[in-house]
């Protein structure tokens, strides 16, 4: 055995040792096999990337959001200045805030397309009802996160859009007044509003979002990707063919007299 062959076999032994050690203690190899080699529908594979695109964009939101926190200051005096600093002075600030902003826009579009795909292919039907419900909850959470993020800029656009949003919210029957006062931290939009929107945008709703994403993925894996009906064309054709034959047999039994079809001819040939 040559030098290279010896090194190679030693490397294989070493990696096997490591994976066996990890497998024995954590079961991670079995888990990875289970997660990675799951069969998924083939024909519409490109369409089903919309869901993982949504997940990817949410991950980008978390990542760039954490990086923005390095500089962002959630006070009325410094919020705008800190964003101005991020955009003009901070290393890659334009890029990091740009990705946060643009991937949020793409995220809303991807969620819309993902929902439309599931709706029109009927992917919400039994046994996947609860995954649709979890998806709607995720949509609502993302929309509120997007709304609260707008105010954090503390520029004219974000400020006045928040004023309008709060005004619209205050029209809610029964609960409007209290809810809006709670969100604004008072009767007007000011320092308390910014603190609360910051807490909601950065902590409360992302923390609520994460477990729902987990449930969404768990349920997806539990029932498998549905895809669309054209993933099942051959199986449906077989089912319909069998049902047609069964109907035909029942009809014969009830009617007594054989009339047409291969089976009849076979019976007749056998008796003659």
């Amino acid at each position, binding site marked *: 055995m040559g030098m290279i062959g010896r090194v190679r076999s030693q490397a294989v032994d070493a990696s096997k040792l490591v994976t066996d050690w990890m497998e024995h203690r954590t079961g991670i190899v079995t888990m990875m096999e289970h997660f990675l080699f799951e069969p998924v529908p083939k*024909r519409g594979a490109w369409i089903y990337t919309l869901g993982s695109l949504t997940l990817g964009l949410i991950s980008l939101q978390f990542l760039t959001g954490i990086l923005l926190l390095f500089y962002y200051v959630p006070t009325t005096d410094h919020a705008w200045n800190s964003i101005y600093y991020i955009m003009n002075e901070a290393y890659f600030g334009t890029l990091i805030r740009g990705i946060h902003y643009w991937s949020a826009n793409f995220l809303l579009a991807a969620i819309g397309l993902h929902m439309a795909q599931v709706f029109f292919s009927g992917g919400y039907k039994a046994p996947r009802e609860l995954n649709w419900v979890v998806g*709607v909850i995720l949509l609502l959470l993302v929309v509120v996160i997007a709304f609260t993020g707008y105010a954090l800029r503390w520029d004219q656009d974000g400020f*006045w859009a928040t004023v309008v949003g709060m005004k619209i919210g205050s029209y809610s029957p029964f609960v409007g007044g209290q809810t809006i006062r709670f969100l604004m931290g008072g009767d007007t939009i000011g320092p308390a509003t910014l603190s609360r929107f910051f807490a909601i945008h950065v902590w409360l709703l992302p923390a609520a979002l994460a477990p729902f994403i987990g449930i969404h993925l768990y349920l997806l894996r539990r029932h498998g990707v549905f895809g669309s009906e054209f993933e099942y064309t*051959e199986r449906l054709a077989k089912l319909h063919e069998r049902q047609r034959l069964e109907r035909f047999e029942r009809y014969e039994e009830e009617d007594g007299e054989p009339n047409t079809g291969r089976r009849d001819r076979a019976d007749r040939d056998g008796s003659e």
Partner: protein
Amino acid sequence: MYGVATGKARPVEEEVITEENVFERPDETIAFFPKQVLYDLFVTTLVLLACCVLSYVSPAPLTEPADPATITYVPRPEWFFFFYEQMLMFFPGYALISFGAVVVPTIFIVLLLALPWLDRGPSYSPMRRPFATVIGLLVVVTVLLNMLLAISRIINFPGQ
């Protein structure tokens, strides 16, 4: 004899396809890894690249610092709220605004949450459940039309 080695020559029991199990697995599958993962990575990477390019071509906006004293500023919602803002225009006045702003969207969200129990028919294909499909298309068209109306309003009356 060779069956054990290849794992393929074993006699496969013919599966009887029934109404219950027909949607259990698709006709053709691919392994999630590596194929689907590669597709996913490809699309996500394309969008990430688009975000990077757009960050410099069209940087994330930051207007003048907030000034609660101004009275003439016309705020624009973000584009994904355009249809909602436009919809409010159809509910003018104090009596109707709470209906358009809160009641209608709440009903819509409740219907959205209840969708799987509203459409319990056995067919999946959009062609064979025309009611759901038509309603869905109407929602899409309404949202898109409202967006177009909002955009044309913003272009026609800047600063209003």
